[in-house]
């Protein structure tokens, strides 16, 4: 294999049950349950998944939920806004630690 990530591996996700059937099956049952229409629509859930996929920087998930968001009828602006939400939270998570840095700097400084 020439790269760490192979797009064809996404279709093999289900194979993880081969080495641990019960936990794998429970995960996929749970996964299916989570994405069913509930208090949130399937499209809203797909857009959340798309945002999280970017935050965890998972190429498989980005492929899967780009396709899924389109399939659920999301438009390009909605998809990019979802990515911005992920970016804002990730950026915010870095910057809010600036307060900790300021606290520590103040503690150490005369």
């Amino acid at each position, binding site marked *: 294999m020439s790269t760490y990530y192979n797009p064809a591996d996404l279709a093999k996700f289900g194979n993880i049950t081969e080495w641990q059937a019960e936990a794998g099956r429970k995960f996929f049952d749970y996964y299916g349950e989570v994405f069913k*229409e509930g208090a949130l*629509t*399937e499209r809203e859930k797909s857009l959340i998944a798309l945002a999280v996929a970017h935050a965890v920087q998972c190429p498989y998930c980005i492929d899967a939920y780009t396709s899924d968001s*389109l*399939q*659920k*009828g999301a*438009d*390009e602006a909605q998809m990019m806004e979802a990515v911005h939400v992920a970016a804002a939270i990730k950026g915010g998570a870095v910057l809010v630690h600036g307060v900790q840095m300021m606290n520590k700097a103040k503690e150490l400084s005369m």
Partner: protein
Amino acid sequence: MIKSLKATGNQLADPAFQLTVLRSEQAEGAHLPSFHEKMRAAGLFPLRPTEATVLQINVGKMCNQVCRHCHVDAGPDRKEIMTRETMQLCLDALAQTTIPTVDLTGGAPEMNPDFRWFVEQLHALGRHIIVRCNLTIIVANKKYHDLPEFFRAHGVEVVSSLPFYNAKTTDRQRGDGVFDDSIKALKMLNAVGYGIEGSGLRLNLVYNPNGAFLPGSQKGLQDQFKRALSKDFGIVFNELYAITNIPVSRYLDFLLESGNYAGYMDKLVTAFNPAAAAGVMCRSTISVSWDGYLYDCDFNQMLDLKVASAVQHIRDFSASTLAERAVVVNQHCYGCTAGSGSSCGGATA
């Protein structure tokens, strides 16, 4: 405006070449099971028709639009148009059957010079008439501006493609300015009562994916369309039909040119649903081409796969003989059997 595959001399304008491509997936690196075998395993081969409830008539390939996914390869440069003589043969055939619904398609059916005469005759026969109206034809020329009123007067059910509720996505598939013109036409249809609750005038929209992916839940998409069209434009409609793009003609060209062919076919095969396969519309439809030949559906028509029956032309129409046929299927049929299924009336499962 882009040109038709036929006008540009594209090999895919030839139905035989399209079938060669569809039957040689191995060349694309994807190994797909044959549709015949898949149907056999589901207990659905040979596929037998049920009672014919729809006569779908393609009155010509001429269209004012050139959509990127069009399976008819329609456009202003297509001159194949049904004559009044062939329309009369359709009327004669209908008169000897109880087929309740006539579904008129094209091209833009309204561009056929005998379209209004044909609708009047069908109305006089007492059949339910569906017109697959591309919307923009209504505003394309002054002579078409009264179409909403004409439809209303003849109890026509209007079924119109609108692949998305915004201009960017719609225009990319159907051409520049199509969304704005479609919105104007929808407002004109609403103004005479189409889509208005209690009017009895049905206005249904058709969604199809803008690329190499399957449609999502029809109900979910309908909710989004209703919300967006009502909020942004004050437009109402009855139902949204979610239709899968079938790998035929210009959509097949898009798949091959964009490198999506193998992946898309794989998606269709993976999503094969026996329940959807049992409900395919070709079992209850007879499709007539502009020159009067008979097919199991409009896609088979474009692939020149005529009905497997002694009766092959509308002039020889016999409901009982046609009822004995097996529906002609091929690799493109995976499009109608994937997921929730697909038909001219949307999901089937």
